[in-house]
């Protein structure tokens, strides 16, 4: 199905926001201004946007430690996220969560998660809830080639099948679980989706560096799950442009690997080539978005720098609703 001009511009814009959000953090983190651990999503934008562009606010997602892209794609506010990463009390989580724990329940974003593999069972619970509500909504859990080795992921896949929950397991295979190659750590390295198949799910596979592959694949997956067929899984082959965490020297990479994947596997470049080649959009259309996004990110950083800092008293609030 042909996407409208507005949908194409929107998808590009959302991918570009994630890209520039992460590229800017990569620079800012080196100044020491941002505290803690940060894991950047750069390179995988087509997956987050190609999945979330199908979702409504009532659909739920559960994310990972590499969660900025999922958050932004699901509708979390750019300024609120930047302020959170800066540790401001004006951040989405009042500076209590930080990069690894951004959540926005109002957007159906049930949280990034610092524990690899912890998200899948939570998504199954959300999916059971949505099944009870009976409105055809779905819950999606994003997992990488690291989380696919966690027992929680296996338990969640079986539980989803047993309860016929409208849960979608999206496996983003970026070839590295932290600092270890997937050919070493994943027994079915060329085929994570086959694991979901073994649990009794229908599975799909797509190219995670191609927005259109992700988007079209997800349309099929969502049609299947929204129709009440129970859970499904999809694996997207993708690339991680930065290290596991910021500061990772990435000595495990091959010679010229990062340059090669940036050159040949960049989802934004591929999107531009595809839509300008097909004369759906012009370079000028996309350049205008690029400029606008750079302003958005610059504005978010300035706002984060200027935002209120938390006070020592804030440590004690928000543990419970009733004490």
């Amino acid at each position, binding site marked *: 199905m042909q996407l409208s001009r507005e949908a194409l511009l929107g998808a590009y814009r959302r991918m570009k926001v994630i890209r520039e959000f992460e590229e800017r953090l990569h620079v800012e983190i080196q100044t020491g201004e941002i505290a803690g651990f940060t894991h950047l999503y750069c390179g995988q934008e087509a997956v987050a946007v190609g999945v979330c562009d199908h979702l409504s606010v009532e659909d*739920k997602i559960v994310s990972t430690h590499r969660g900025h892209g999922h958050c932004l794609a699901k509708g979390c506010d750019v300024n609120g996220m930047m302020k959170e990463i800066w540790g401001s009390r004006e951040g989405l989580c009042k500076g209590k969560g930080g990069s690894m724990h951004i959540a926005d329940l109002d957007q159906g974003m049930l949280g990034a998660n610092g524990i690899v593999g912890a998200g899948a*069972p939570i998504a199954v619970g959300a999916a059971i809830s949505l099944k009870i509500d009976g409105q055809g909504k779905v819950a999606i859990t994003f997992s990488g080639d690291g989380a696919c080795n966690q027992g929680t992921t296996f338990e969640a896949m079986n539980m989803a099948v047993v309860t016929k929950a409208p849960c979608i397991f999206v496996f983003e295979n970026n070839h590295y679980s932290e600092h270890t190659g997937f050919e070493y750590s994943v027994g079915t390295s060329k085929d994570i989706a086959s694991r979901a198949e073994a649990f009794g799910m229908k599975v799909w596979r797509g190219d995670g560096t191609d927005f259109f592959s992700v988007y079209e694949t997800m349309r099929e997956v969502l049609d299947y799950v929204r129709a009440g067929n129970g859970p499904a899984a999809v694996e997207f082959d993708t690339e991680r442009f930065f290290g596991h965490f910021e500061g990772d020297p990435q000595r495990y990479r091959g010679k010229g690997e990062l340059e090669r994947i940036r050159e040949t596997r960049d989802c934004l470049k591929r999107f531009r080539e595809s839509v300008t080649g097909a004369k759906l959009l012009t370079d000028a259309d996309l350049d205008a978005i690029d400029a606008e996004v750079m302003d958005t990110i610059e504005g978010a950083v300035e706002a984060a720098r200027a935002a209120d800092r938390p006070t020592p008293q804030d440590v004690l609030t928000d543990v419970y*609703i009733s004490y």
Partner: protein
Amino acid sequence: MARMMYRDAVVSTIAEEMERDPSVVMLGEDIVGGMGTPGGPEAIGGIWSTSTGLFGKFGVDRVIDTPISESAIIGAAAGLALSGKRPIAELMFADFIGVSLDQIWNQLAKFRYMFGGKSRCPAVIRMAYGAGYNAAAQHSQSVHQILTGMPGLKVVMPSTPADVKGLLRTAIRDDDPVIFLEHKALYGMKGEVPDDPDFMIPYGHARLSRAGQDVTIVSSGLLLGFCETVADKLAAEGIGCDVIDLRCTSPLDEETILDSVEVTGRLVVVDEAPPRCGLAGDICALVANKAFASLKAPPEAVTPPHTPIPFARELESAYLPSADKIEAAVRKTLSWR
């Protein structure tokens, strides 16, 4: 007032709350029992008979029999709670928290804080705990000291059928995650239970089950009854004991403990969990710190030894705090001055 067993207080409270609020759902292993068998659903029912009849009444969407997957059970409860439901998840044995601890500790307990106070996580995690069944090291443990150490959880351990009713209803209606610990040796205990459909016991309020002027005994769960036996025996000798049933270990009712010790000057804490970094030491430290001037004797802790729980009847009996050990500790505090 109706007279009922501790286990029936559990199941009737769940049924009443499921009736009242359609967002309450229950999940756990074999809570229906018999699913996928020739005998069919409810052929067996939960092993503690704490979900009897619920499947027939509320159906497959709200009474969810799960595979043996404790992480997924707790994780699903977390996801249900974040999505607007009020899940009651059952761990068949408290010992199984080890299998699911990440979902309890890093997920449920921390959502609200990590998300800047913007989430509601009304999940109840019920579990059967405690020794007395010769079930040995992996099916007899008291886990409240582990869970009380986790900010973000409320930890409740009722000692009577009436308290099950009032504390469980509070748990189900609470918007925070609650760990609800049911002592397996108390499931058959009978007692009077209020009929009021809104009977609730607020958290952080201990119950004075015996009143006296000489010694304060603090406990909860199965051992509370042992403490009451000791108090009744000593009362005949003219020795008065305050017996405080904590009801909750988080939040802790410090005030009731301190008020009592300020009168008695003597403290004995009786706990079924291991002694190190535990509840007994915690309360002794609280009293030493905040009621030091009132103390007439060093605070005493009566706990099992720092060993796993043994199997043989003689060994389990030796392991558990007994009325004799509690009485000896009380007399020891009285031997000072």
